[in-house]
């Protein structure tokens, strides 16, 4: 079975994002960029499935600017076999991304797509579900455990009150939650090897997908700043403040 793993290049999770002065978005120029943390978990899970003999080939895909190539190299250093860059300068929404991914999935014909449950920049949590809908495949979202057997995948999902289990016919789309695994670090020899693995570039506008945004960003602002608080000296003083000043207990 082949596995396709979509990955996204995002502002590194350790960077405190800054809103642009013209309120058009968040500053990404000159900011450290990395693979979306949930996507690292997806790559790791694909590699583990191959190590267990449940997968034969892992193809990573990203959609974006040429500068996203290092993210694909990282994924290949973790164990992916080859990579596809669907190149575009446009800022794309999950719907357009899912449609582009569908063209890749249609071409590659994998048994499984594993991807992060959300990107830490737009915080949408939608692309995997939309892709599953457009492929008419079952979905296992927010996965904290998966197992593949007899053409089906069992997915343990992080639900509101606990853990839910679903059993899906393959091919399927799975999105990863944090607890699924601990991604491995790419070793130096593997980083060197990854440089020789195939990386194919496809222009997004050759794929016949309508990329026009459906959402117009009116403005992006800083959230309101909380009023500076005070330090108290003791638990008794704290309880006094909560009772008499804040009136919350």
């Amino acid at each position, binding site marked *: 079975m082949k596995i396709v793993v979509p990955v996204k290049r995002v502002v590194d999770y350790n960077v405190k994002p800054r809103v642009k002065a013209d309120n058009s978005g968040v500053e990404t120029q000159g900011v450290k960029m990395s693979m979306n943390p949930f996507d690292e978990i997806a790559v790791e899970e694909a590699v583990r499935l191959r190590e267990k003999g449940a997968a034969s080939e892992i193809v990573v895909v990203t959609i974006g600017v040429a500068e996203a190539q290092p993210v694909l190299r990282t994924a290949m250093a973790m164990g992916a076999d080859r990579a596809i860059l669907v190149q575009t300068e446009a800022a794309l929404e999950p719907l357009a991304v899912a449609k582009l991914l569908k063209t890749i999935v249609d071409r590659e014909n994998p048994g499984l797509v594993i991807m992060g449950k959300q990107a830490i920049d737009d*915080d*949408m*949590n939608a692309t995997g579900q939309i892709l599953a809908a457009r492929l008419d495949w079952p979905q296992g*979202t927010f996965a904290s455990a998966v197992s593949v057997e007899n053409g089906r995948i069992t997915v343990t999902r992080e639900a509101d009150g606990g853990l839910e289990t*679903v059993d899906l016919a393959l091919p399927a789309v799975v999105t990863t939650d944090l607890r699924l695994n601990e991604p491995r670090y790419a070793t130096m020899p593997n980083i060197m090897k990854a440089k020789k693995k195939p990386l194919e570039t496809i222009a997004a506008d050759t794929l016949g997908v309508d990329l026009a945004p459906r959402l117009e960003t009116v*403005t992006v602002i800083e959230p309101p700043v909380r009023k500076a608080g005070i330090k108290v000296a003791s638990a008794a003083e*704290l309880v006094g403040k909560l009772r008499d000043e*804040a009136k919350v207990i």
Partner: protein
Amino acid sequence: MTTLVLIEAEGASIKKASLSAVAAARVFGAVDVLLVGAEGAQEAARIEGITRVLHADSTPPLAECIAALIADRAAQYDHIVSAATAYGKNILPRAAGLLDVQPITEVIEIIDADTFVRPIYAGNALATVRSRDAIKVLTVRNANFEAAKLGETASAPIESVSAAVEIPDARFVGIALTHSDRPELETARVVISGGRGLKDAENFKLLEPIADRLGAAIGASRAAVDAGFAPNEMQVGQTGKIVAPDLYIAVGLSGAIQHLAGMKDSRVIVAINMDPEAPIFGVADYGLVGDLFEVLPQLQAALEA
């Protein structure tokens, strides 16, 4: 035109997050609610301000089936809404995918019928977006909207519905619920959360008497969950639950960006931490610098006094 709100029942009662979604959706006009599952229709019919209850009692609790059910009936609606819970976040984007519309998730403010505010970058920025889609599919953060009220008696008619389409092969195996007598984290008036500073799962119990005294839900930071001190569903943050209680008490947690994204809209924030430089003090209304193992018993004593 009318709005369809996907609601969720827990046993025979409607989840409070769903009641918030109904209240948010009422600004668009008339509201139909859709309930999937055997129980809860009678209580759903008591929700004030709704036109009717669509009840799919034989539809399996799977995104594949419920999204198909929604898409099947979507032509009658201009907005499709649910709470931004794990349930809604699983289903609504799939329905949007079937309808070829871009969903708008985690909405915190509705400006008008097309324009919405949602946090991005772990809540470090607020984006106002205007949708060009004919049908708006959105999930709303319940912490930002009041809950709709339940009337004394059932007043909305209940109509039985089912999906008339083929669905992909998926089976619901089961759910292992984490049992708790405490209030639900996302709707509790008071939340006390522990971080890595508690050092182990046993010490997490130190939060319990204080939670009992305050009628609080107990939460955890991602670090505490990853270290195995607390179960996943207790996690507060960008990748866990979003809460906005009247009082949030953060104990032994540093206040990483990802945690703040889940709680910084709380009305009053208290931080108890040994490190005076911890970022959590940057958002706390009241900060107490000290060893939590000394402070927690003192806090308990002060609450009893």
